[in-house]
């Protein structure tokens, strides 16, 4: 059971003069590296620009990863059972994040204050928070502004609606 790299795709984003958006997507063979696609993308965008009268406003490079053992969700699992983390950044901003299907064994019930909270002393929870606050092997995540995370302010379970797209046919 391992997470392995899948193919990389490049998506170019265009905008016309009434602000409508459209995209072109091209794919790359598995052996292609992210660095190679980064170089290719800049050159390719320059070649696309002369053949469109829309504005080429951006591009995304998407590296896909997948589990090579075809993962199966546990019986009774529910993506709407969310683990919620409210984290303060070094710039004193608040970031709220969640993950689907939080397991019961990392939860603790509390009367005062009332609620179902995430046990911050749990080894797996502590590992996640460590990865958020101090990083993994020198790489640290951030909020979308690029601010590092500083400390967990709140951690609790919440039941919240999700899409029900059945995107995965597992």
């Amino acid at each position, binding site marked *: 059971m391992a*997470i392995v790299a899948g*193919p990389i795709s490049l998506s170019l984003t*265009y905008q*016309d*003069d009434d602000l*409508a*958006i459209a*995209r*072109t997507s091209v794919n*790359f*063979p*598995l*052996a292609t590296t*992210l660095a*190679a696609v980064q170089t*290719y993308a800049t050159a*390719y*965008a320059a*070649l*696309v620009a*002369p*053949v*469109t*009268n*829309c*504005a*080429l*406003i951006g591009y*995304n*490079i*998407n590296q*896909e*990863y997948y589990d090579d053992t075809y*993962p*199966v*969700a*546990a019986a009774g699992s*529910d993506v*709407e059972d969310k683990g919620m983390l409210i984290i303060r950044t070094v710039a004193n901003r608040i970031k709220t*994040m969640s*993950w*689907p*299907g*939080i397991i019961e064994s990392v939860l603790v019930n509390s009367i005062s204050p009332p609620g179902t909270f995430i046990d911050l002393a749990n080894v797996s929870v502590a590992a*996640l928070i460590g990865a958020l606050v101090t990083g*993994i*092997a020198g*790489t*640290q*995540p*951030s909020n*979308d*502004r*690029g601010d590092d995370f500083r400390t967990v302010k709140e951690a609790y379970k919440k039941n919240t609606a999700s899409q029900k*797209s*059945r*995107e*995965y*046919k*597992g």
Partner: protein
Amino acid sequence: MGWQPDRTAAITLHFCDDDGATSRHVINVAASALPVAGDFAIAYAELFRPLSDCALWKINFTLRYLDDTDPVAAVGSNVNQRSVFQFSAVDETRFDLSFPGMVAAKLLQPPDTYAGIGFDLTDVDIAALVAATVTGIGGTEPCAPWGPGVATAFTWGGSDLVGLLTAFWGYVRAGRR
């Protein structure tokens, strides 16, 4: 200036529960961490195995680039008006690549039978784009997203694009946002 990376790249973890419903978790990493962020994405995703009973079935690591020169679309441009390039793949399938917007000056001119419909494949800009798609740039080349993977390098279902069959313009509905 020109293309600049966004301040952060996004890592999206895709989860699925036992009745097929899906949900996502998104985290960012600063652009300065990009060289190793792929390794981080895998290590970070592994942390959720003991924390979720849903199946973690896909991870997307997305780098975003924006043009800081604030490009302006031509008056009358329309993303639904597409330049369609139809390529042949090494496994004898066809792959359509469409580019939103159309430059009329790149079309064939009378008395050509396909004047106003087909693109002039001898146009230097058209030829350069086709070459970049079929033979690549600096050793990197795209592929069709499906197929048996005939060529050695295309082992994940992609098929090498080997030639251009035709190029023309047409309308394809796109998002209007």
